[in-house]
């Protein structure tokens, strides 16, 4: 009885938003123990906007200890990085690795629960297959953290999960400890095509917006039910406690309030309204993003980032003013009407206003391997258009700005002392097609070493297959 009551208390408390929901699928991620490492004499882009030439990076106990020149070795393993560049580990805020795994067979189509326009109760992490070879090729591209999202078939597709890009047998071994969930929503053509094609709502953009609003209105009602329940339960317990002292006849007749039924869909939406879940919206057109910002204000939540945002450049000032990130491609376009107005300079233009938050994202098992090249293209086109974008600024698009959108900026995204030691050593300036990630550290441990193919992690799936990549 006592246990039941304490469970009720917990449930009531988090449903009402008093604290974050307990996550039943707890991270079991364990950093690999690593000796202290000193990376010597590199060009360092630290993710805060600084560039340090001939600089050292010291990692110990999985954390960044110092970045500077001529740091004391202090017993650390020294890595000579003369001529190399060093950046924070790259972060992709938009991936479907694991939920649309390679090989892309029918059995691996786990990214879109295409049975209802609002499936806020589904979680991408329950579809993640850790053996997707794409995780491993992304690691070779310097990606240390990624958010895996449900697809964009639904208005509200479900929760995204932020992962450490390390080999694991279970999803929980990859789950980023302490990272908030994301909520995936989608504007525009995809939901209305999928459901309109089934003869149901939404079949238009009008239907899309009505669908979001009704779902959140239901969530508001749900939150009120739990608030009411909590108030009544508190009152009831107070009454019971009073009753104990007086031992009056009849006190036992008061009935405890009935706990509302849990609704996984609405729990997620309440989490978004309470700021515990980062809201990520797939949205291409500028006018639709503006509608979504008004919708978010109506229900009192903040949009962390618009994803794809092919027209984000048309409202770059508003995005910056409202503190909304734009997670964008460098050059992908034209596959549908809402992707017709792409420009090379999108990322650079979104980056231009004060307090902006431009992000390079992939949404692709190929693109995630080359986020640095995507950034290079965007940087170069921005420069051609007259914007001053040095590499130390552009690297933020795939490190610190991405961390901000995922709600993990206190942990990763820069090389500031105290941050997790996610570090990439590049063969040269990473804003080059010829640059290769030579070493990738996660929590200070060397997880990928280009120079040691035998030690590189490999997916179970590729073991024993007739043709390996190496020859």
């Amino acid at each position: 009885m006592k246990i039941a009551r304490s469970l009720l208390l917990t449930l009531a408390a988090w449903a009402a938003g008093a604290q974050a929901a307990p996550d039943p699928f707890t991270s079991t991620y364990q950093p690999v123990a690593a000796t202290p490492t000193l990376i010597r004499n590199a060009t360092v882009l630290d993710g805060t906007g600084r560039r340090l030439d001939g600089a050292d990076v010291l990692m110990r106990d999985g954390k960044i200890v110092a970045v500077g020149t001529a740091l004391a070795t202090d017993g650390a393993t020294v890595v000579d990085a003369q001529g190399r560049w060093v950046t924070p580990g790259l972060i992709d805020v938009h991936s479907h690795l694991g939920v649309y795994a390679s090989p892309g067979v029918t059995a691996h189509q786990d990214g879109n629960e295409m049975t209802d326009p609002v499936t806020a109760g589904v979680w991408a992490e329950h579809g993640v297959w850790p053996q997707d070879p794409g995780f491993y090729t992304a690691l070779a591209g310097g990606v240390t953290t990624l958010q895996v999202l449900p697809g964009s078939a639904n208005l509200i597709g479900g929760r995204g999960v932020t992962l450490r890009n390390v080999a694991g047998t279970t999803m929980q071994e990859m789950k980023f400890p302490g990272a908030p969930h994301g909520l995936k929503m989608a504007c525009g053509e995809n939901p209305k095509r999928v459901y309109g094609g089934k003869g149901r709502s939404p079949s238009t953009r009008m239907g899309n917006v009505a669908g979001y609003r009704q779902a959140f209105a239901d969530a508001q009602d749900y939150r009120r039910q739990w608030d009411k329940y909590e108030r009544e339960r508190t009152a009831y317990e107070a009454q019971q406690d009073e009753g104990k002292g007086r031992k009056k006849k009849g006190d036992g007749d008061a009935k405890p309030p009935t706990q509302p039924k849990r609704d996984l869909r609405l729990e997620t939406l309440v989490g978004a309204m309470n700021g515990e879940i980062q809201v990520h919206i797939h949205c291409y057109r500028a006018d639709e993003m503006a509608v979504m910002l008004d919708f978010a204000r109506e229900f009192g939540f903040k949009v962390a980032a618009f994803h794809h945002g092919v027209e984000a450049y048309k409202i770059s000032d508003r995005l910056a003013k409202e503190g909304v990130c734009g997670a964008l491609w460098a050059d992908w376009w034209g596959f549908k009407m809402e992707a017709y107005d792409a420009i090379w300079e999108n990322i650079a233009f979104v980056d231009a206003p004060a307090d902006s938050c431009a992000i390079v994202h992939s949404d692709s098992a190929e693109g995630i391997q080359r986020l640095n090249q995507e950034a290079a293209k965007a940087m170069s086109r921005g420069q051609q258009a007259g914007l001053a974008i040095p590499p130390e600024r552009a690297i933020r698009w795939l490190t610190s700005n991405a961390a901000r959108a995922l709600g993990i900026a206190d942990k990763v995204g820069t090389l500031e002392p105290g941050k997790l030691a996610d570090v990439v050593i590049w063969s040269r300036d990473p804003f080059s097609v010829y640059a290769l990630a030579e070493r990738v550290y996660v929590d200070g441990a060397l997880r990928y070493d280009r120079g040691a193919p035998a030690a590189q992690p490999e997916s179970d799936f590729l073991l024993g297959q007739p043709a390996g990549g190496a020859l």
Partner: protein
Amino acid sequence: MRALQFTARAFVCTLAALPLAAPAQDLLIRNATVHTVTERGTLERADVLVRNGRIAAVGTNLATAGVTVVDANGRPLTPGLFGGITALGVVEVSQEPTTVDNDPHAAEAGKVAAEPRPEFDVTLAFNPDSAVIGVNRVEGVTYAMVTPGAASGAEVISGQGAIARLDGRADAVVGPSRTLFANLDAGVSRAGQFMLLEQAAREAKPATPMRDSDFRLLTPTGREVLARYLSGGRIAFSVDRATDIRQVLAFSQKQGARPVVVGGAQAWQVAGLLAQAKVPVVLDPLVDLPDSFDQIGATLQNAARLHRAGVRIAFTNLNDGTHNARKVRQAAGVAVANGLPWDAALAALTANPAEIFGLGTEYGRIAPGYVADLVLWSGDPLEVTTVAQQVWIDGRAQSMRSRQTELRDRYRPGAR
């Protein structure tokens, strides 16, 4: 930056001065780093003289009388780039059926989708004014294969395509590049696909005259067309798996067709065989994951291994080869980062595709007699931070504006 603005302004003047149907220009590009993609290799501080739209001379201190002179200031000059296996000019917006003209079966709704229609000629729908073309032209893409069925093609034979030149001319299609496209993709029984291919070939070249009661896979027109391609014509097979490539080689040898492998994720496994049979491969150097079981063993080193074995390779973007055809340049750079010699990568964007599709004596090189399709670059042409500064087709300076540059300038920060 300054040089770029100068180029742009100079071009505006050129446009104003020329009537729309200007004759092919005479032109002297001086002081360029000329990547000839010939045995002469790369020439530093060289001049390229263009007369009547063709390259007249490549050397130093060439005569300048009566021609427009462009000073390259040492920047790289390459042949115009091949955009790959695309749907340029036949698809404007992929998901809008009214803008999609590369599907042979769209006009026959309700019919069996696998029915081979070799007579389908996608080039009849080619729209030289497509905004997608302009977007790619300003990136140095001067010609591309216009392809039936494109990436979606589930048909064993999806029809005929050809290379189109991308300067907006009405007669864009270059005849000798005509190619029949076949698909041997995962998803339908491979044995079934080879069965249909054999049947089609049998109908096209019957040992004895066919009777009315004989089973017919092809229309009479289809039989005539296929017969032409089976008699020394070029057939591009979209195929990834090594063993399927072997079957394609056997089928082609038996039928007397010249195969081109498109895709070829596992082609490196049969590189020796391909080299021996002189069968080229048009591949996407970025493919390194097994998107299907046919691509297990896909590797970033595919291009380097094929080249080393002596296979002629060209590049395409299989992911979005139409709108982002321009991405082949990046893919070439990635191939270099993974072991392909730089010169071989440039050849895979220029001379090799021209050779593969029958245009090797006129396109893809900077040499006397070659068509003057040229690109002047801001830096290393394979580098992602490099941009095309001027594109010439037939020696005519192309507009360096596109729908995307128009949008850029309308929304440039501070412009509004």
